[in-house]
């Protein structure tokens, strides 16, 4: 086969190249010519097309994401910030934690099991790349209506894929989200989060430095799978038929190889045998070679025919664009090479020297004696196009915000209230998620202290001291649709509240921004507002954004999904033995912390009972959230809390049902004389939590609330085997349990 070379490119400048088919704009193509001083070779063209794709270049989001850095609150914990594969924070005791959430939406629609599985594999490699041992995963899933045929097609496979890959890697799954909404009907969201831990001094960076150092490809052979997956598949809008616009090639995951890769890399790190390392994710070798060379400010030379292939007939551009999974690129000094190869062999991981670091400042790739690539690596990795796309407030937003739920009919008799409560706890978004979470291993590694359905997952890092972390992620597409700035802050506030509810102190944030097409000004406005809200919120809460991911083009035909920023908050807890669980104890007093206003805009009640989406989302008060968090953390530290559960979707009713069922104990609720039971039960005001305290220290705890200027209400006592609301309700726990637990099995078994 004859291949286009740098020499030919110079000789024959007029060759017509298929840049448009590769997704490049005419001016982008012209820019490549300017960078190179000649037309690109076909191989170079393929490399630019994948690296300058939305997915790899963040060309539409960059100008907004920089707010996360510009507005980042001062933090002495931040060891590695945005821009690396994942951020790293100091959790004390010489340990560093890295975490990040990423999307795999489109592949999971096309091949649910493998799409979701490789999504987990990809985020785990990002964490491994930082030098950390992955210690847990979480998954954030959004589907169309629970009873929609396509939900039945994709949900079981996606759940099985998340479990299949994570379970096989030995990573406990400690939480996630499961949301049903018709806006995701043709475009489910599959986000996955991984968290890892390492000794501070083991942090790895992805820079290729030191001319003469060897470039080693670790892991799976390179095949034709996932070629163009990033630029074509991951950024392709689905056509109206719901099918993918292009028949993509999807990757099949091999978790066993990834498990060996993890053990191999960690042994390499501990033996200090790598000078730099980078995972191969989107854009495969192209991304890994250009990013490491660019980060090192060095040059690199690669002999492409040394790359182990599954199919000998692969051409240079295919080898460079392939997204074969379970691969890493390591930079190793010649002196360390034999030892490094020995470690790889011990773990049965293929390791091949494919090139070396140079001082030329160019990435030069040879294939069968010809030079097929000769480029400045930064032009691909860092100097891609940047767009400040037009934004426009959605035309329908005023109307949407004006159609307030206040006029919707409400339960007016005790019987209607009771029926509403039972329907709400049985609704797909509020019901028990065990059908899904049972498919995930929560115990492996033996350090899981809290996992789903608790407010946050809690993992022990150090057996001796009990030092641990807590993690929660949240996102509400309906709130964000009604007000993207507030919606993003509500997602942040809820995750922050969840972490604090367990007794952990929130310290850092990651996020995955799932939106429609950036080329639509109304979507771009939603994105800009959400990023601004999240950046401002993180500043107010003192929790810096350490990393994340953007997924655009999430729409079916012409309709974009509800804008869905998924926000993850990491907390640290000095002794996991004092974590606060959500299940009520058999006796004690129930306190409601915070203020309950009539806030039903975007609420679960309005949606579930009336299919209504309108009005304003609950008001955000981040100073209140901070005060609430401090009280919850202090109460945990000083052993004043028997249980705590944060309020969010479904309001107080949902929290009482969940904490009673979890604790297998009833509760007798007495609301303030002037309280409207419906509003108190189903309003979704933010900044609230329910706690259980023993009668004795109750006064001490409420004293702290007063001191923190945090309103509290004593709303009842624990005991018995029913949930009762004085004067209106009395529902046996068994009846609640049947309603709560029955929904998903009946939908998906």
């Amino acid at each position, binding site marked *: 086969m004859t291949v286009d070379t740098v020499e030919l490119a110079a000789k024959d400048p007029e060759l017509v190249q298929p840049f448009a088919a590769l997704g490049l704009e005419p001016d982008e193509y012209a820019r490549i010519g300017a960078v190179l001083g000649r037309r690109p070779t076909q191989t170079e063209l393929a490399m630019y097309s994948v690296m300058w794709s939305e997915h790899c270049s963040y060309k539409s989001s960059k100008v907004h994401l920089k707010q996360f850095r510009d507005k980042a609150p001062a933090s002495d914990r931040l060891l590695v910030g945005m821009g690396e594969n994942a951020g790293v924070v100091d959790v004390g005791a010489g340990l560093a934690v890295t975490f990040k959430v990423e999307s795999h939406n489109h592949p999971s629609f096309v091949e649910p099991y493998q799409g979701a599985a490789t999504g987990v594999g990809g985020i785990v490699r990002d964490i491994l790349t930082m030098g950390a041992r992955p210690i847990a995963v979480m998954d954030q899933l959004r589907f169309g209506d629970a009873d929609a045929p396509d939900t039945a097609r994709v949900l079981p496979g996606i759940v*099985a894929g998340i*479990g299949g890959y994570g379970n*096989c890697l030995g990573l406990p799954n400690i939480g996630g989200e499961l949301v049903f909404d018709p806006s995701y009907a043709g475009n489910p969201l599959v986000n996955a989060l991984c968290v890892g831990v390492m000794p501070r001094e083991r942090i790895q960076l992805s820079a290729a430095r030191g001319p003469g150092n060897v470039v080693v490809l670790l892991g799976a052979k390179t095949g034709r799978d996932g070629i163009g997956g990033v630029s074509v598949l991951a950024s392709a809008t689905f056509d109206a038929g719901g099918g993918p616009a292009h028949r993509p090639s999807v990757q099949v995951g091999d*978790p066993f190889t990834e*498990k060996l890769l993890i053990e191999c890399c960690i042994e390499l790190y501990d033996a200090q045998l790598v000078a730099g390392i980078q995972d191969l994710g989107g854009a495969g070798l192209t991304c890994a070679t250009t990013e490491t060379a660019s980060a090192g400010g060095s040059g690199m030379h690669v002999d492409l025919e040394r790359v182990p292939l599954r199919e000998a007939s692969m051409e240079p551009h295919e080898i460079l664009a392939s997204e074969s999974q379970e691969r890493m690129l390591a930079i190793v000094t010649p002196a360390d090479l034999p030892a490094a190869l020995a470690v790889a062999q011990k773990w049965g991981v293929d390791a091949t020297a494919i090139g070396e670091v140079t001082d030329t400042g160019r990435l030069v790739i040879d294939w069968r004696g010809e030079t097929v690539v000769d480029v400045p690596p930064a032009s691909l990795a860092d100097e891609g196009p940047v767009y400040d796309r037009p934004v426009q407030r959605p035309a329908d937003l005023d109307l949407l915000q004006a159609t307030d739920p206040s006029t919707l009919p409400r339960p007016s008799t005790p019987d209607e209230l009771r029926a509403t409560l039972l329907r709400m706890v049985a609704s797909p978004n509020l019901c028990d998620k065990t059908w899904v979470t049972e*498919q*995930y291993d929560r115990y*492996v*590694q*033996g350090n899981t202290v809290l996992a789903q359905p608790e407010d946050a997952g809690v993992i022990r890092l150090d057996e001796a001291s009990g030092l641990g972390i807590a993690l929660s992620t949240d996102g509400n597409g309906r709130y964000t649709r009604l007000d993207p700035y507030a919606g993003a802050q509500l997602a942040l506030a809820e995750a922050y509240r969840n972490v604090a509810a367990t007794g952990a102190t929130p310290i850092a944030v990651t996020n995955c921004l799932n939106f429609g097409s950036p080329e639509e000004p109304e979507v771009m406005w939603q994105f800009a507002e959400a990023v601004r809200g999240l950046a401002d919120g993180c500043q107010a809460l003192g929790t810096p954004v350490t990393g994340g991911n953007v997924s655009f083009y999430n729409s079916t035909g012409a309709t974009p999904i509800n804008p869905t920023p998924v926000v993850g908050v990491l907390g640290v807890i000095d002794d996991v033995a004092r974590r606060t669980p959500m299940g009520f104890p058999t006796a004690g007093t129930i306190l409601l912390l915070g203020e309950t206003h009539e806030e039903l805009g975007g609420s679960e009640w309005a949606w579930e009972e009336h299919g209504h989406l309108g009005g304003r989302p609950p008001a955000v008060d981040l100073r209140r959230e901070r005060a609430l968090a401090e009280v919850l953390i202090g109460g945990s530290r000083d052993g004043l809390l028997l249980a705590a559960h944060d309020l969010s979707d479904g309001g107080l009713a949902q929290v009482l049902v969940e904490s009673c069922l979890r604790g297998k104990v009833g509760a007798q609720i007495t609301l303030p004389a002037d309280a409207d039971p419906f509003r108190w039960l189903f309003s979704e005001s933010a900044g609230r939590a329910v706690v259980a305290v023993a009668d004795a220290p109750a006064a001490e705890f409420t004293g702290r609330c007063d001191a923190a200027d945090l309103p509290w209400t004593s709303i009842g006592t624990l005991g018995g085997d029913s949930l009762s609301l004085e004067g209106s309700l009395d529902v046996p726990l068994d009846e609640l349990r049947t309603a709560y637990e029955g929904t998903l099995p009946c939908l998906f078994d």
Partner: protein
Amino acid sequence: MSPRIGVVTFPGSLDDRDAARAVRRAGADPVALWHGEADLLGVDAVVLPGGFSYGDYLRCGAIARFAPVMTALVDAAGNGLPVLGICNGFQILCESHLLPGALTRNQHLHFRNRDQRLRIDANTTAWTGAYEPGDVITVPVKNGEGCYVADPATLAQLEGEGRIVARYVEGNPNGSLHDIAGIANEAGNVVGLMPHPEHAVDQLTGPSEDGLGLFTSVLKHLARVAA
């Protein structure tokens, strides 16, 4: 000096660290054994931990069976060395014919992780002496292929010889015949158990401490045979 209990790590073993932790909690010294070495380092007993050895591709345990360490283990087990196979370890023991029957795909086709109630039916094995027959314990189960099957003759023999070590109660999580959660070989030194006792040794990280008994049992057993 306290007994030394080997924990084998195959490529893809996952619960090996947890098994070692349980061994330590029971008062023994865990010894790491490597799949590639046909050497048991003179340990007093061996645990084959859970996980996905070789990815559990093809069939769970089918490839691990051919690891060098297994040839040594099969001989030693024949000479009475106490061996406990947990989950994937149980599957490996069946594939190696140290235990009869096989573990197949869960009837509902899902991986299932839940806190499972188990009844100990035989306390005559090397690994269950610390329990009373009829004891009901809570231990996590987590597997995708935990459905125990064997031909009627084998099942009758297991029942007849009291070799069904533990049964699922209050719900069978995978469709196992006769609700079998664990079985023993004729001599009682080799036990396979689908649920994970090593994840029930500490209230902080497990549903109970009921699983510790398997590890203390083997210490009792070793003390007895030493005396």
